């Protein structure tokens, strides 16, 4: 992985934020290179377990971005997303992950600059935190194995 | 003539201070004039409320601070209650005036300053205001000796009117209050 040591994953809805990221590109807005974008139809498709899976597999930060409330292409997908993701962000500490490593935001197709700022800000937040060490969190190839997953901490097991 | 390049950069900090203290945004004002049209004192101001807001928008804070608007506005808040943008115009004016006071910008409305000072002095000394004393002192100090004298018999025909200055017991507490307000006029 390039662009420094950390790995960031972005789950973006196709209609707003992905288009916003396209816009940032079309406008040639320089951004840090750690972000890897996964395109989805809607943030309502983002299963919290998918976010946790990303962390478990080695992501150091996960960003979810969709349409502004009221602007959802599917009318209400982002409201469901908001509820789930808000809950998820409050639960991060429980999973042993610094809450700053997870963020969700609303960026429209016309907000290229805002996307660029968000990526930059998010990357700069995670860089000082460094790699995520999921103690007892289970399999991660490039980390030391801490033995078998301790108790119920691993979301993967729960799944 | 307002040199905008200058005022907009030089006035920026003071406008920000006014906005911060009042919690209002001067840029919100769209100059509809509702505030002025409802203001019972607008005729007496050099700048009616909407123009006062405009001065702040243009960064011409000096002019706003020196205007009679702040001094003559008696804070009835009619403008604030009718503003279509919900700007608390009265608060913006009052805040600007207070900042002008702090900066020692001299009030041209001497009568009003005299009234306020005598009022507060009376309360500071005795804990309660005595309207008759206030009238007497104001007339004496302002030189308008017969001001409102015709009202005195009208007041005196009331029952129970206190002829002498009332005083509260715990004047020490009131002095402490004024002392604190003098040391720290704002929280």
């Amino acid at each position, binding site marked *: 992985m390039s662009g420094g040591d950390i790995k960031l994953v972005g789950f973006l809805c196709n209609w707003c934020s992905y288009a916003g990221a396209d816009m940032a590109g079309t406008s040639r807005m320089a951004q840090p290179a750690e972000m890897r974008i996964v395109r989805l139809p809607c943030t309502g498709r983002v299963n919290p377990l998918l976010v946790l899976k990303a962390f478990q597999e080695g992501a150091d930060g996960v960003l979810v971005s969709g349409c502004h409330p009221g602007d959802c292409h599917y009318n209400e997908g982002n409201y469901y997303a908001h509820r789930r993701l808000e809950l998820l962000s409050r639960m991060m500490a429980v999973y042993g992950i610094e809450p700053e490593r997870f963020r969700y935001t609303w960026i429209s197709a016309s907000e290229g600059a805002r996307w660029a700022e968000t990526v930059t800000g998010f990357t700069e937040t995670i860089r000082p935190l460094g790699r995520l060490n999921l103690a007892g969190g289970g399999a991660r190839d490039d980390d030391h194995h801490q033995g078998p997953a301790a108790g119920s901490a691993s979301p993967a097991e729960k799944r | 003539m307002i040199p905008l390049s200058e005022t907009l950069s030089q006035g920026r900090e003071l406008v920000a201070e006014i906005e911060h*203290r*009042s*919690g209002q945004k001067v840029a919100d004002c769209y100059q509809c004039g509702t505030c002025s049209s409802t203001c*019972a*004192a607008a*005729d*007496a101001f050099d700048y009616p409320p909407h123009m006062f807001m405009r001065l702040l928008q243009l960064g011409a804070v000096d002019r706003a601070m020196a205007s009679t608007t702040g001094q*003559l506005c*008696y*804070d*009835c*808040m*009619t403008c*604030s*209650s*009718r503003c279509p943008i919900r700007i608390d115009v009265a*608060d913006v004016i009052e*805040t600007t005036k*207070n900042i002008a006071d702090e900066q020692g910008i001299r009030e041209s*409305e001497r*009568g*009003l300053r*005299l*009234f*306020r000072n005598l*009022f*507060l002095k009376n*309360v500071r000394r005795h*804990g*309660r*205001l*005595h*309207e*008759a004393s*206030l009238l007497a002192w*104001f007339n004496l100090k*302002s030189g308008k000796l017969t*001001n*409102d004298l*015709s*009202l005195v018999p009208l*007041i005196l*025909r*009331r*029952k*129970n*009117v*206190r002829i002498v200055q*009332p005083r*509260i017991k*715990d004047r020490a507490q*009131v002095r*402490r*209050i*004024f002392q*604190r*307000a003098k040391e720290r*006029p*704002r*929280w």
Partner: protein
Amino acid sequence: MVSTAYSYYPGCSLTSSATEYDISFRKVVEALGIQLDELEDWNCCGASPAPHHKAETLGVLLPGRNLHIAGASHDAIVAPCAGCYNRLKYAQYKLAGDQDIREQTSEVFQAEVRYQTEVLNIVQMLNREITPEALRERSQGRLANIRIGAYYGCLLTRPADILGFDSPRDPRKMRPLMEATGAEVPHFPFKTECCGSYMGLARKDILLKASHRIIEVAVSTGLDALVTACPLCHQNLDLRQEQINKAMGTSLRMPVLYFSQLIGLAMGISPEELELDALVVQPDMDRWLKGVA
């Protein structure tokens, strides 16, 4: 032990230029069988000259002291003066909303500040103690011959978010009790316009113009009287009515009553007891009470 009586905060005006407000209020309250305990050693609220506005110290400390005293003994404090009511509510709002202000205030008072006593104006209190139905029952249409205007002015309703009493654009809380007197209460377009406040001494010109407008509209609305709950408004509109006429070259006549005087009349208390003689512009009581045995 907290008393069930109201703590009563007359304020400075009610001891000098507005004693008829004090007397008539006490008469009404007495007739309703409610106990009033005058607030011990109360001080001036600071009125308009004490800087308040958002963060000014004096505007909290002066009324705060009264709140603090009342809090020791009473659940509710009633302030008939609209200005006093306004400042008490302001202080309460600041004290309730900001711990730092609470702490600093406690430091000045040398005691943990008590600020939670309920603050009531005269309209709120009387609405609580006598329903319009009950007043209608007592008044038996006593004032059926007259048309009166409810004049709210500024301090009773503004700023609405702090006072939370009534709409600042279209207040209506005085109306039910006023109508229960039997009188007609037509829409008074200037019910929220300012009378000129404390400008009387220093800038009479502004005040007289503003008050003149209110009286003029009251006359053209065909009112027999205005009713107010503010001594300053009363001073400007009644006490200065001659000055107004002189300055504007008019000969308007508009009696201005205190809310308590009107309610007292409806309850059958005599005009003399309610100190109606103290008014500069006298209402024609014979006509008002025509047909009352």
